[in-house]
């Protein structure tokens, strides 16, 4: 599955990274706690979050997360999107809540990123 395939599933808007939508997606992580994201995420994951500060993009950069989905209708400030463009992260926004977003993606076959990052 690619990032492009997620858009109709979530009725998502592409906030940045329009040219990088064909990247593969293997697993996902849903959290507002970046500490936990840093501890649990593995490769090729996407991040679903309601936290809209710049640290979301910094955390994503460290973990090679190439797609961040902002749930429950949240739109991050411009400086956060600017950071995402600089790093090369695709950013999507959906009106669905975190829970529903995760559920829809799970139903579509995307599984959790539950392994410890050092494992």
């Amino acid at each position: 599955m690619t990032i492009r395939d997620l858009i109709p599933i979530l009725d998502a808007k592409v906030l940045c990274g329009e040219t990088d939508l064909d990247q593969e997606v293997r697993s996902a992580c849903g959290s507002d706690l970046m500490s936990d994201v840093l501890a649990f995420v593995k490769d090729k994951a996407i991040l679903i979050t309601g936290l809209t500060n710049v640290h979301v993009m910094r955390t994503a950069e460290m973990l090679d997360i190439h797609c961040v989905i902002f749930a429950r209708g949240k739109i991050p400030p411009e400086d956060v999107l600017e950071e995402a463009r600089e790093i090369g992260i695709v950013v999507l926004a959906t009106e669905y809540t975190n829970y529903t977003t995760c559920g829809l993606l799970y139903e579509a076959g995307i599984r959790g990123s539950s392994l410890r990052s050092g494992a």
Partner: protein
Amino acid sequence: MQEQLLKDSYSVCAGEYQTAGDASASIKRKLKQLGIDSTILRRIAVASYEAELNLIIHSQGGELMMEMTPVQIKLISKDVGPGIADVSQALKEGFSTASEEARDLGFGAGMGLPNMKRNADSFDIQSELGVGTTIEMGFQLK
């Protein structure tokens, strides 16, 4: 003593949340250019970012250093205080003394030190109250 290929040092100020991650991003980009394996690189980046965040959230300021030899990459975090009262407690997952400010930004879940330890091949922490904390992490390249 192995030949040193690259040495880098960044000073990290206490409370500078806005620039959190700059040092780690710079380390990651430099190592990526050198062609370090992406799995090892991600472990180094995560450990480095956790160390950098700890310096910002908990220390009175310090330094993040990276040394690379042909066989390993070493990350060293050294601060000027306040020191950790109980290191074994601080190494437990979920234990945190982070401020509300840090928690509001999505950090301070008590995963930092355990996560550094898990990602590094070797991990050493020395801390003294009133003096400071030094963490040394090693990542084997071969």
